[in-house]
């Protein structure tokens, strides 16, 4: 029975590692579409580079790495439980997502800039 658990564990571990590597490889070689990932998106198409998106990407990767390293450290200490996450991580993530969504709202609805008069013209002309 112990051998069965061991084989099942190895199987799933190999599958998850292989899947992670394949997805990572496809992301890095652009086989998985990443076009426009860090660019602002407006109703009439992608615009320029967005620092808000870059900061959210970095915070996401940092948060994921923090969680995985906490879990790995617990397992190495034979503590089979999720780590207690620092509250500052949640503040950071909330702030990051707030900035990202605020930027997204602004790019679509122009909340903090000039209104796009051409879009509101009687004929509804677009630039």
């Amino acid at each position, binding site marked *: 029975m112990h051998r069965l*658990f061991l084989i099942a564990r190895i199987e799933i571990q190999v599958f998850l590692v292989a899947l992670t590597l394949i997805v990572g490889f*496809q992301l890095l070689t652009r086989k*998985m579409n990443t076009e426009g990932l860090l660019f602002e998106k407006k109703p009439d198409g992608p615009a320029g580079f967005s620092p808000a998106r870059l900061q959210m990407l970095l915070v996401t990767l940092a948060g994921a790495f923090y*969680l*995985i390293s906490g879990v790995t450290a617990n*397992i190495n200490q034979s503590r*089979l439980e999720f780590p*207690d996450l620092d509250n500052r991580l949640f503040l950071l993530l909330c702030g990051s997502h707030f900035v990202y969504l605020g930027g997204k709202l602004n790019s679509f609805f122009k909340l903090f800039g000039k209104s796009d008069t051409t879009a509101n013209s009687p004929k509804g002309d677009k630039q």
Partner: protein
Amino acid sequence: MNFFFGLQGAAPAVNPQWTTLALVIGWILTIFVGLLAGWILFLIVTGKINLSGLISEPTGQASLSRFQFLVFTFVIALSLFLIIVGGDRPAFPEKIPGGILALLGISGGSYVVAKGIAASTADSDTPQGT
């Protein structure tokens, strides 16, 4: 009941036939899951399962909200699996901290809000009278 649990007051005696049956079923399931996992990986590598649009919107552009949702979902699922199989015998963790659920909630909530913003702009772009 004595057939399964032996004499009252004594440690329960498991019928060896049931143990053998459990072992056989376990091996069959393990082999099946292994073959299935290998087959899925093969289909992904050969392109039959196409992941190119995994984080893309219907417009064809990559979506950062989908990407961050993918990352956090995958990381938390992977962590849960590592904890379950980390011991001598697989066991679900005694508790899942609220922080982990909050993490999933933040990630998922952000994805939903981003989709809502994109959908509302698509609706507002619809010409009048159509």
